[in-house]
């Protein structure tokens, strides 16, 4: 049983979706229980996978048993990094699914089964992308996750959701085709699609092959679109803020993070850190762009009046953190990036859950409508505050530790611009969130005169959120703190994959010496 875990995590989600499709169309009441059960099973299996990876090392699962020669079939390959990201995906999926309990009923009653089918297939696609060891299989699952997310975003009520989904489709398709072209070039030069085999073929080539450089550029640019890295983020803010809350809670925390994960996987396993950092001298450029991404994302977040839009621009800045961290070309930068993939997923989840609750209970769209929320919704605000403190980077939340590692990486490799950008971005986050706290705690500033009291009676009916919304939010808050408290254990796990594996045949990341 245990050796089948990698495939089981996808199968429970796939069969959950099929069951919703076949039985849920007739009886809508079973959709939610089936979805939550499937996700809970997937979460349990991914815990089992993590357990196995910790005990036994890298898991290699050959689908259909085609193991010799490597590459004729498809290999699923799980080390501690993907096990952790997989666990993040299934946990976020489960929490956001619980949150969707009431919302979907109210958003589009008749389409509940369709929503849950797409939802389960989205989580399946993302999980599949994370566990695969095959560059083309990753593309197929990228299609699964992209198509489902387009549809989920387009299901929003307003027309703007459809327009946002359309521009997301165009951008996302360009990104996916770039990735596919890159994989094509790789196949042309290496004759295999298996990630480890590609790596061996690349290291076996003499000199720098221009086809492989082009493949690398195409893959990274394609992924930059998918993860909304700075100049290519245009599709993100509208897509994530106009879609239904139940959708944004799963899409916003996961899609960009999985894009970053794929980039990390490409750098570590497929091309290899030696090749990426020593043959190509792109590090300076990429970190420079990350600095611009961080600063631009933060400045644009400052300019927003809508809550969800503000979170979207924070995501843009956070993607900058992670891309910059990965390209710092040293140990702590990479550790910080992987750790931040996890912590940012939960922080973003926390933000969007809170935004969903505010929208539902109080109709809050703009930041200044949040006045008095501490009094009206104390529990929701408690969860929100934890997430906000993590975004700012205050110990013991996970946001503090990921920034700590990233800054350490930046200092060790001498990228001071990156360090400064991180600190400025944290300051901006502090300004953003303390502004919200101020409004929510003290109410609006009395600049507007007497108008403030007029709508007071109408506002006071706002009640605390329902249990199905509070439980995920508070669980997320607890996870954010737990990730912070157990940061050392997580870092140990991440380091295990950076050090041990034969595929990272590089001294660059093994902790002994950076590029300096």
């Amino acid at each position, binding site marked *: 049983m245990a050796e*089948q875990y990698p495939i089981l995590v996808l*199968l429970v989600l796939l069969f959950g979706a*099929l069951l919703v499709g076949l039985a849920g169309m007739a009886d809508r009441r079973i959709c939610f229980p089936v979805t939550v059960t499937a996700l809970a099973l997937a979460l349990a299996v991914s815990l089992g996978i993590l357990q196995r990876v910790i005990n036994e090392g890298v898991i290699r699962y050959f689908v259909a048993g085609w193991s010799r020669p490597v590459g004729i079939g498809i290999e699923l390959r799980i080390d501690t990094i993907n096990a952790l990201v997989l666990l993040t995906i299934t946990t976020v999926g489960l929490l956001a699914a619980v949150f969707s309990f009431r919302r979907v009923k109210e958003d589009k009653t008749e389409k509940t089964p369709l929503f849950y089918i797409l939802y389960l297939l989205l989580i399946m696609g993302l999980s599949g992308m994370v566990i695969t060891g095959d560059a083309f*299989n990753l593309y197929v699952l990228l299609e699964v996750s992209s198509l489902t997310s387009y549809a989920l975003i387009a299901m929003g009520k307003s027309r703007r959701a459809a327009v946002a989904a359309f521009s997301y489709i165009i951008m996302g398709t360009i990104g996916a085709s770039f990735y596919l072209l890159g994989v094509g070039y790789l196949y042309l030069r290496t004759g295999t699609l298996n990630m480890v085999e590609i790596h061996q073929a690349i290291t076996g080539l003499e000199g720098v092959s*221009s086809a492989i450089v*082009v493949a690398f550029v195409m893959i990274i640019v394609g992924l930059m679109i998918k993860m909304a890295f700075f100049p290519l983020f245009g599709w993100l803010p509208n897509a994530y803020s106009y879609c239904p809350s139940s959708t944004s809670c799963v899409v916003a925390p996961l899609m960009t993070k999985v894009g970053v994960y794929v980039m990390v996987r490409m750098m570590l396993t497929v091309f290899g850190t030696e090749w990426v950092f020593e043959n190509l001298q792109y590090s300076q450029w990429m970190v420079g762009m990350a600095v611009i991404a961080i600063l631009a994302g933060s400045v644009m977040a400052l300019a927003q009046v809508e809550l969800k839009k503000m979170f979207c621009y924070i995501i843009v800045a956070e993607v900058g953190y992670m891309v910059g961290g990965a390209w710092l070309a040293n140990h702590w930068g990479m550790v910080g990036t992987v750790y931040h993939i996890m912590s940012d997923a939960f922080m973003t989840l926390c933000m969007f859950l809170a935004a969903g609750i505010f929208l539902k209970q109080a109709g809050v769209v703009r930041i200044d409508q949040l006045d008095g929320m501490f009094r009206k919704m104390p529990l929701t605000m408690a969860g929100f505050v934890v997430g906000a403190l993590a975004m700012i980077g205050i110990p013991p939340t996970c946001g503090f530790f990921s920034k700590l590692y990233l800054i350490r990486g930046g200092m060790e490799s001498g990228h001071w611009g990156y360090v400064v950008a991180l600190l400025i971005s944290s300051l901006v986050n502090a300004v953003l969130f303390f502004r919200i706290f101020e409004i929510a705690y003290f109410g609006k500033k009395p600049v507007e005169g007497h108008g403030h009291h007029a709508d007071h009676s109408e506002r006071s009916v706002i009640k605390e959120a329902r249990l199905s919304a509070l439980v995920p939010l508070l669980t997320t808050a607890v996870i954010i703190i737990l990730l912070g408290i157990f940061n050392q254990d997580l870092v140990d796990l991440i380091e295990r994959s950076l050090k041990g594996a034969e595929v990272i045949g590089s001294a660059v990341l093994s902790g002994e010496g950076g590029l300096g």
Partner: protein
Amino acid sequence: MKWVGLIAVLFTGGLLLSAMDDFPKWGDAHSPANASPVSQYYIEKTIEDSGVPNMVTAVLADYRGYDTMFETVVVLIAGIAIMAILRVMNQIPGGARPSPRHEIGDHHDIIIGTTCRLLIPVLQLFALYVIAHGHHSPGGGFQGGVILGASFILTAIAQGLDPALERLPEKSYVKLAFAGVVIYSGFGVMCLLLGENFLDYGVLHVLLPGIDAAEARSHSMLGVEVGVAFTVSAIMFAIYANLASKGELEGGL
């Protein structure tokens, strides 16, 4: 903005062309893709492994069957996505909507009607042939499924959407689409239950007495192709029906 787009396209094209030097020669037998142990294995061992003369089918449905399963899921998602976005589901309770069906249904062309009447059975028969003959010639579940789906669409074009939906109502095509993926993944799960890895068809020979592992692979490939054809044909029709009627599934073009 147009200029930015042009520059981006030219730059990307230039980038792709810049690697041309590094390509293996056209038709080079020793190019990495041809000389790799993977290609060698497919060429030498396909017949031995599964007895399927069409190597492409063997790669698609057996060696890399996992990819193909998810491609089938992608097709399913495409249909579900169209339904999720377009389908108008809140019917007015009790009250029949004024439907344009009679106006459209009445004056269909006799030439088109007769041609389609002759064409559709042949099309469907050919679709089944393409599905079943994928082992030996170009074809398989995707191609056959598209032809089968096209025959339903032709019915809808010739006779109107409503008669076509009477033959293949929404409930049925949704079930068919899901059944296809159930068939495909069902083959995989059977292998799991018999103690082998997912989609390792060879083990299925214990279910059918008198065949060996290679034959089991060959038959299972046909089975999953049938599953693919279910999904593809149903989704083709679903997409047409939703697009043609703006999601109301009435009247049509």
